[in-house]
């Protein structure tokens, strides 16, 4: 691909991402306004329950959210506030939502990162082995276990792991210790069960994708050529097959984020009491703290959008065969 062509493509994708962001923000606005009792009402009720002067609170909220203004102006200020980073006030934790997110995102991030590493490494290895030794007993075993891994509800798996390793064997704490520094061995140990909980389903999926992708590539002519010219099998698999097979797998891993990972992180954090964004949203639900729930939904979408964008762009470097127009 020529340089200019690539730049044009990247620019187009960026513009498109902005468009999608607007769409996402608009849909959350519509949903918030469609709700039977306006979340602002619930919010108001909770606010006034906590302070002495309800009239003052009402005035503050009116001016902040402008609920007396026409709808299009409300929409305008909603969008403007979001882009300015003014994400509202979380009354249940008594701090701006922005600072709340800043304090807690790292817990979700570490969990996702470790689970991705764990599941991608194991999944790709098992999938590769399974494909190379197709129709052997171990292949059947791997296929069977990947079916189980895909089907097991991860929140139930988490509970079973706690029951076995924490309650019965006492190897791990039943609850995540929030006092641990992020970069410490103790923290790593505390994350073992959560990572298995979140990573098992992902790993099973990656095993299946890798197996299918490697099998597709093993049938290709270039593999026959490589074998015919006498390359050792390890080189054929490692250099020719895996390199071609891994790209679609990585793409799927990135695109999987939205469907598999976010739901999983949310539940895993709830079960183990990890104070990440999922847990924050979970707590906010019961306090009717709607700026928090809204913001976390938007952040999730934004992360999906950015990873998809990054995947699309990185792809252009990895695979020169693809042409964009």
């Amino acid at each position, binding site marked *: 691909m020529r340089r200019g062509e690539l730049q044009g493509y990247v620019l187009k994708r960026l513009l498109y991402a902005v*468009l*999608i962001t607007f*769409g*996402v923000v608009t*849909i*959350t606005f519509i*949903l*918030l306004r*469609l*709700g*039977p009792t306006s*979340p602002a009402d619930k919010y108001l009720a909770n606010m006034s329950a906590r302070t002495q002067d309800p009239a003052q609170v009402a005035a503050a909220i009116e001016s902040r959210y402008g609920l007396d203004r026409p709808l299009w102006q409300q929409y305008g200020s909603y969008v403007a506030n979001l882009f300015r980073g003014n994400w509202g006030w979380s009354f249940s934790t008594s701090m701006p939502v922005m600072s709340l997110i800043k304090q807690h995102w790292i817990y979700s991030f570490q969990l996702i990162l470790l689970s991705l590493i764990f599941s991608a490494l194991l999944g790709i290895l098992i999938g590769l082995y399974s494909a190379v030794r197709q129709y052997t007993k171990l292949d059947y075993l791997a296929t069977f276990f990947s*079916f*189980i891994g*895909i*089907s*097991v*509800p991860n*929140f*139930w798996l988490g*509970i*079973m792991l*706690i*029951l076995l390793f924490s*309650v019965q064997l006492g190897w791990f704490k*039943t609850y995540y210790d929030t006092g641990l520094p992020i970069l410490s061995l103790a923290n790593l140990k505390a994350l073992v069960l959560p990572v298995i909980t979140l990573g098992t389903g992902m790993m099973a999926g990656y095993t299946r994708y890798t197996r299918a992708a490697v099998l597709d590539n093993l049938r290709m002519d270039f593999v026959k050529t490589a074998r015919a010219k006498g390359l050792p099998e390890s080189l054929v698999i490692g250099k020719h097959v895996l390199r071609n097979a891994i790209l679609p797998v990585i793409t799927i891993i990135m695109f999987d*984020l*939205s*469907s598999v990972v*976010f*739901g999983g992180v*949310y*539940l895993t954090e*709830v*079960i183990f009491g990890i104070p990440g964004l999922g847990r924050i*949203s*979970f707590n906010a*639900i*019961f306090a009717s703290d*709607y700026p928090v*729930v*809204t913001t*976390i*939904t938007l952040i*999730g*979408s934004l992360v*999906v*959008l950015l990873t*998809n964008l990054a995947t699309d762009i990185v792809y252009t470097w990895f695979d020169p065969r693809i042409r964009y127009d």
Partner: protein
Amino acid sequence: MQGNTPRSFKGLRNILFAALLLVLLIVYLTGIFLVKQILAPVNYLYLFVILLILFYGIYPLYKHWRLTRYYWDRVKKHRLALVGLVFIVLLVIVAIFGPLFTADPTEVNFKEKNVPPVGFSNQQSVYNIATDKFVTTEIKWTWQHPLGTDDKGRDMLAMLVSGARVSLQVGLLATLIAIIIGTIMGVTSAYLGGWMDNALMRFTDIMMTFPFFLLLVFIIFIFGPSLAFIILAIGLTGWTGTARLVRSDALSLRTREFVTAAKALGVSDGRIVFRHLIPNVLSPVIVITTLSIPGVILAEASLSFIGLGDPTVTSWGVILQAGQQNLETTWWVAVEPGILLFLTVLAFNFLGDGLRDAFDPRSQS
């Protein structure tokens, strides 16, 4: 195949179906009029789906038994798919008729709380006020509660059977809504093309950007948890994958001769979409339906698990969540619904995989 069916009979089937729907509607409206509903609103939808499956699913299978046999022979080769099918059929039977035979799942009985399932014993230390000491007592299992009871003395078997009904209702209804929206979106988008296609697909992209579970949590948080609404929310958000798949299939169908021929004969757009395009994308749609039901069942269970489930129904997620609170004393309350959830999801995955292999022309060799 279509041409063999006499027109009058096809009309009769539609009329019969419409008549039964009318009966359902009248019963429902009478319920509103009398203030006291005979069935919960969700059950009307459930009956509607069962009628739909009977008239437009089972009947055509019977009518075209030769084709059915052909596909059945291919599915049969997949052992695990058969196992999955048997499990699902059993589950459906239990979900429909089970509640008639089990105890009331909401009946609280503190005299028989924390009874373990058959074959296990439960040792508990109970604080005795009179002696100011902890006394270890043992609760033995009984045949009266083969799967034990929870911390309020409710029968686990009854709760699980009622949970099976909830899970299947959610799974079938929400998937059906999602599939119908997705199919119509995909086919319309591909057939009309141009700015319509562009607009519909951009909307699909926006919906896909929301993480599925976060969007569900957001919607249920705003609109409140009722079973009907949870079903609607899952259905209205879960159609994106189907829309994309159907669109790509319909795009290649659109240029085929039979569509051009129909157009040349002056057939209307709506008729081409419903008579020519949709029937031809049905086999991938059936596969994707089977494979999305487990995701939907899991979504409902997850919502219930984080406390956003309908508080008036006993779903597997609700039982699991309650079980998690008392993991150290009554482990079976968390273990049992999870096993059922797991087996159900596994069964649908097995069946979906088998159907995909049976319908996929590439696997014919």
